[in-house]
């Protein structure tokens, strides 16, 4: 919904039902709204049964990768020989994405309940909720909610701890997050081994996104079939998703729609279209790490995992960044490249040097010192940065660069030929 929190009629309100409702933050308020019933039921069930339900629901990871959640849970060892851990990814730092913050700010108990159900399913004794350092308000709200829930003893033996990040986008990568929890630099790990085999402290671990876990209590309450039916297009993409609409839009905000919802309707209807007198130029549907769509593509994309892939992009985190005709695509892509250059952990050569070089070439173009060969250089450099590193930050930098040059080549050429005046100092 936009702000103030009033759902649009075309939204499917599940996760966002209590956004804007301050009473829902308290334990009592949450229980009054039917909270913690799903957890009580889940704790009575066999962990395997809970996993099967989530598997059958078709829920997929909402952090960006879209990996089937129940399947991920089933990777944990069948025989319980060692401590199991659940890590909750509340590091939300993907440009364009601001949904997990809302979930934590307004419905902290939804996250806690989902965490506890997941922990039960994977037989974890401890859960760490990794909240990015800048989220001071959500952290305080989560702290209070956690204390209340602990007092009410709803979690059984499960220990839930909040762990505060300290400013690193890369810690949203699951293996980097585990390193960060262990008190190390947030460097992603090479895989194998995979977290379910050797994760945090070398123990079997599952990492889930905030939005993913917030959906779990609903699935347990209403059943897998209910979740499966929430589907407008491809049966492999089910449930609802919070799409964070931002940039050049009249009503920025989080909009909750059923999977398969047309992106066109999200932008023009729910988010109120573009600022007055402006037309759509481009849109990134899934956070800055996915390819940019041009106007025609944007207006024909269905918002689910397969629908986005069909258009050559990805659903990602669902951070929808809108660019109208006043946007300088070259400048914005440079700014995105600079983001990745700042956030690179420095392990892999392609990422460490490539993100910085990409940024420098784009800055040079914006300073009026670009050459025609620079565009081929950027494309080749992006090719070198794709599919060759420990994690996909490198690929993420390449995505807007490649799609930007492919679809908005004219804007780059305008700077190179001098048709457009430099906007940066040389």
């Amino acid at each position, binding site marked *: 919904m936009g702000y103030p929190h009033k759902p649009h009629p075309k939204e499917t309100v599940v996760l966002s039902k209590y956004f804007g409702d301050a009473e829902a933050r308290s334990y009592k308020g949450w229980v009054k709204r039917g909270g913690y019933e799903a957890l009580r039921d889940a704790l009575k069930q066999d962990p395997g049964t809970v996993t099967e339900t989530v598997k059958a629901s078709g829920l997929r990871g909402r952090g960006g990768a879209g990996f089937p959640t129940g399947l991920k849970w089933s990777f944990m060892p069948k025989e319980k020989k060692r401590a199991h851990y659940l890590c909750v990814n509340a590091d939300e730092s993907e440009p364009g994405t601001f949904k997990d913050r809302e979930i934590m700010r307004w419905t902290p108990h939804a996250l806690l309940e989902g965490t506890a159900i997941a922990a039960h399913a994977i037989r974890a004794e401890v859960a760490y909720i990794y909240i990015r350092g800048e989220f001071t308000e959500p952290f305080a709200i989560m702290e209070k909610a956690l204390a209340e829930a602990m007092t009410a003893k709803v979690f059984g033996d499960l220990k839930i701890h909040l762990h505060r990040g300290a400013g690193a986008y890369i810690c949203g990568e699951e293996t980097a997050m585990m390193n960060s929890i262990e008190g190390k630099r947030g460097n992603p790990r090479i895989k194998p081994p995979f977290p379910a085999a050797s994760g945090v402290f070398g123990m079997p671990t599952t990492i889930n996104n905030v939005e993913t876990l917030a959906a779990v209590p609903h699935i347990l309450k209403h059943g897998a079939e209910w979740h499966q039916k929430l589907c407008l297009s491809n049966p492999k993409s089910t449930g609802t998703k919070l799409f964070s609409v931002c940039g050049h839009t009249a009503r920025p*905000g989080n909009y909750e729609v059923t999977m398969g919802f047309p992106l066109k309707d999200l932008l023009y209807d729910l988010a109120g279209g573009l600022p007055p007198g402006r037309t759509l130029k481009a849109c990134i549907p899934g956070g*800055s790490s996915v390819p940019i769509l041009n106007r025609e593509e944007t207006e024909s994309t269905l918002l689910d995992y397969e629908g986005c892939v069909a258009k050559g992009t990805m659903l990602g985190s669902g951070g929808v960044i809108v660019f109208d005709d006043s946007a300088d695509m070259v400048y914005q892509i440079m700014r995105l490249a600079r983001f990745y250059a700042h956030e690179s952990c420095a392990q892999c050569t392609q990422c460490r040097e490539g993100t910085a070089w990409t940024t420098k070439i784009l800055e040079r173009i914006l300073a009026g010192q670009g050459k025609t060969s620079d565009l081929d250089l950027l494309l080749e450099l992006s090719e070198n940065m794709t599919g060759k590193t420990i994690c996909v930050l490198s690929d993420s930098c390449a995505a807007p660069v490649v799609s930007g040059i492919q679809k908005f080549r004219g804007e780059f050429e305008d700077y190179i030929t001098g048709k457009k005046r430099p906007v940066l100092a040389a």
Partner: protein
Amino acid sequence: MSGAAHPPEGTEAVQPVFVGKTLADLERILTRYPTKQAALLPALWLVQGARGWISDRDVAEVAEVLGLTPAYVKGVVTFYTMYHQHPVGRHFVQVCTTSPCNLCGAEAVVQALLECTGANELGATSPDGKWTIIEVECLGACGFATPIMIDDDFIESVTPGTVPELVKKYL
């Protein structure tokens, strides 16, 4: 999470950080993890909360308390951008200028802040010692452009127009 404490200018804080309540906080935190090392990020937050920044001396103290080497701790401190390795102004301001906010005028907000506070240069502390302003990457509030943080306060929807009043509030 209280605001940063600043020792008066000119005095060297030679007392250890982990005494009294801070030590009790750390001991409580240590119970959450199977290793001492895992308490490193929380420990560094405690230091920054007490001192306003993390000096090399603090790094050595944290290392000793957690059974790590100073070099190791320093490597971690320099990785995470929210830990200050130098003293900063009374108010530390972070402005998001990544693309979604950039599209909505974030850079104009930065300019307004620099002018209004007298800091004039990114990363520098204003002459009156009250402000340090930096650009940061996505703050996760893209729908509330432009979000800024002043110390631990997260403030949404800042525009050049609302900057003067905001600055006044913190003076």
